[in-house]
């Protein structure tokens, strides 16, 4: 197992380097680059001279691979993503300050998504083609079709205009008021979770249907086991692997979703940080957030791969 994890970690490294190169070159693609912006802001002396000085000061006069190496080296060795162009603060600090909000939102959304998807998906499968199944499938399709930003907007608008109620958007730290904190995340988390639940629900149902037709399920029934045991212990565990894979695949969607949800519910997470940075063309922050998200996605994929061993002994012994 350790050898496997080590091997996986090693294969991640080239992916990460290429990924950071993508980030680096995207940021360098900018037509009106940072220098232009600074030159136009500090309107002092000869533009060409200022330009050359600035380029030299920022190391932009060196060949691109040296710039890339220097940039990557700083990140890898010192965790230094550079400084924000506008606030002058370290990008790493900005990200660390915002990340907990995004993680909490993502975690709550994932939990709510699974709490919706697994029971409904299982129920749909074991009561295939009943009214309950049809309702479950309709909910799943709706979850996939309703855009999260619309659902979020509707929840902000309609209850407020009908009953004067709107979800609380005041964020209190978890350590001070855990319940108030969770309350703030409940509505945004549900909106995002509902969007994720659709796909997971369909996958759970499809896998359960397939597993329920296996011989070992018939054996379990023949032994006289209770439905609860057959479903939860024999069928569910065997249908979870593709579902877990799917959850891993959904993490990028989840991250995209948090950007939108943070914008609607004004939660100061990484998504909002990124949108602010995009509006101000604050490229070090954009690059930092991108790399950070990439790292998280890779890490989650690794965790998903490792969970196969726990779920499926056949994988473990290989």
């Amino acid at each position, binding site marked *: 197992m350790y050898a496997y994890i080590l091997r996986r970690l090693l294969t991640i490294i080239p992916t990460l380097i*290429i990924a950071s190169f993508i980030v680096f070159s995207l940021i360098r693609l900018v*037509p009106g680059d940072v220098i232009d912006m600074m030159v136009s802001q500090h309107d002092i002396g000869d533009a060409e001279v200022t330009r050359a000085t600035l380029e030299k000061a920022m190391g932009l006069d060196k060949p691109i691979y040296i710039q890339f190496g220097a940039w990557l080296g700083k990140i890898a060795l010192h965790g230094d993503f550079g400084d924000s162009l506008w606030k002058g603060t370290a990008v790493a600090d900005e990200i660390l300050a915002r990340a907990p909000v995004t993680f909490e939102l993502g975690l709550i959304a994932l939990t709510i998504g699974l709490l919706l998807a697994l029971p409904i998906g299982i129920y749909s499968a074991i009561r295939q083609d009943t009214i309950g199944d049809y309702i479950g499938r309709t909910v799943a399709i709706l979850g996939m079709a309703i855009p999260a*930003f619309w659902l979020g907007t509707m929840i*902000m608008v309609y209850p407020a205009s009908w009953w004067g109620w709107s979800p609380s958007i005041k964020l209190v730290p978890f350590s001070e008021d855990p319940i108030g904190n969770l309350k703030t995340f409940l509505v945004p988390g549900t909106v995002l979770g509902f969007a994720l639940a659709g796909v997971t629900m369909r996958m759970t149902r499809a896998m359960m249907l397939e597993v329920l037709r296996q011989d070992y399920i018939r054996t379990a029934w023949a032994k006289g086991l209770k439905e609860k045991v057959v479903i939860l212990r024999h069928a569910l565990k065997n249908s979870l692997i593709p579902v877990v894979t799917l959850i891993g695949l959904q993490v*990028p969607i989840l991250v995209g979703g948090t950007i939108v949800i943070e914008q609607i519910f004004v939660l100061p997470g990484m998504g909002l940080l990124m949108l602010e940075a995009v509006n101000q063309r604050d490229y070090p922050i954009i690059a930092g957030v*991108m790399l950070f998200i*990439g790292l998280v996605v890779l890490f989650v994929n690794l965790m998903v791969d490792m969970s196969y061993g726990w779920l499926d002994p056949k994988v473990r012994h290989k």
Partner: protein
Amino acid sequence: MRENFVTVDHNSDKGSFMTDGTTSATHSRDAAAASSLQTEEGPNNTVVPKARGFTADFFIRLFREKPLGAFGGIIVLILLLTGIFADVLAPFGFNEMSPLNRLKMPSLEHLMGTDQLGRDMLSRIIYGARLSVIVGLAATTLSTIISVFIGVTSGFIGGKFDMYIQRLVDAWMIFPALVMLIVFVSVFGPGMWTIIIILGIQYGIGGSRIIRGATMSTKENMYIRAADSIGASVPRILVRHILPNIMAPIIVIFTTRIAAVILSEATLSFLGLGIPAPAPSWGGMLSGAGRAFMLKAPHLALFPGLALTIVVYGVNIFGDAARDLLDPRLRGGLGSYSGKK
């Protein structure tokens, strides 16, 4: 079945003699029985089910086997027609302001009410359909071309080249689509054609995996080796032999991508990074200046999202049905499950 009926008729009588013992020859007159007998008659049988065109066959099967998919297809058709005939259908212009009629609730004159500038919401929704159709089709076409180009070259050439390209695709895919799109917009600035191009690139790279897989399995076929051995050039093999045989996955990624593309455009416009303001993008209508007025006039929030939901729903179920019909290999996880082994 119906069009075979007459030709099958006289054969079916003969057939019922051969299998005899069947209770009544009159029963065999019905087309189903006739066709089942017809298969027993072997290669001598001149009655071959009429070969329909690929497209006609697809739509007939869609309506017969996938009623829900056909329903989705109708939604798609309505969207297309609304987009094409927006000028005729819309009662007002999409940017036609009338300051006296600001924030009107839905009425007979304005079926979906008016917005904060007195623009007719129904007209904006209709023109929004046109925008969605243009962005959806253009970006999906571009993305499909990119997917096919990357997938076919990577899968066909193989070896080191394939490995490098795939690592690049790997690295690209760790960034969430929305994050990539936002960064692209920040680099190239918003605008309809920029959005189309970046959506095309983003989804094109993502979809190349499926095309690569299909190319690699097609490449192993004997006819490819045969073509190679008679001296066919690589471009000829690619165009005449590989491409026609990976048409099913190509159509599948095209149909299944449209919904994602339309939704992504709406999301970007919602975030203020999509198609700039006066254009009636459904996503854009939910954001920006209108947001401040939504508490007073909730219909501003209702209709654009409803239109978007219906379209995404329709395109999704149509795409699913198309995938099930065209490419059973891709049916697996996310598709509908027939319940039969």
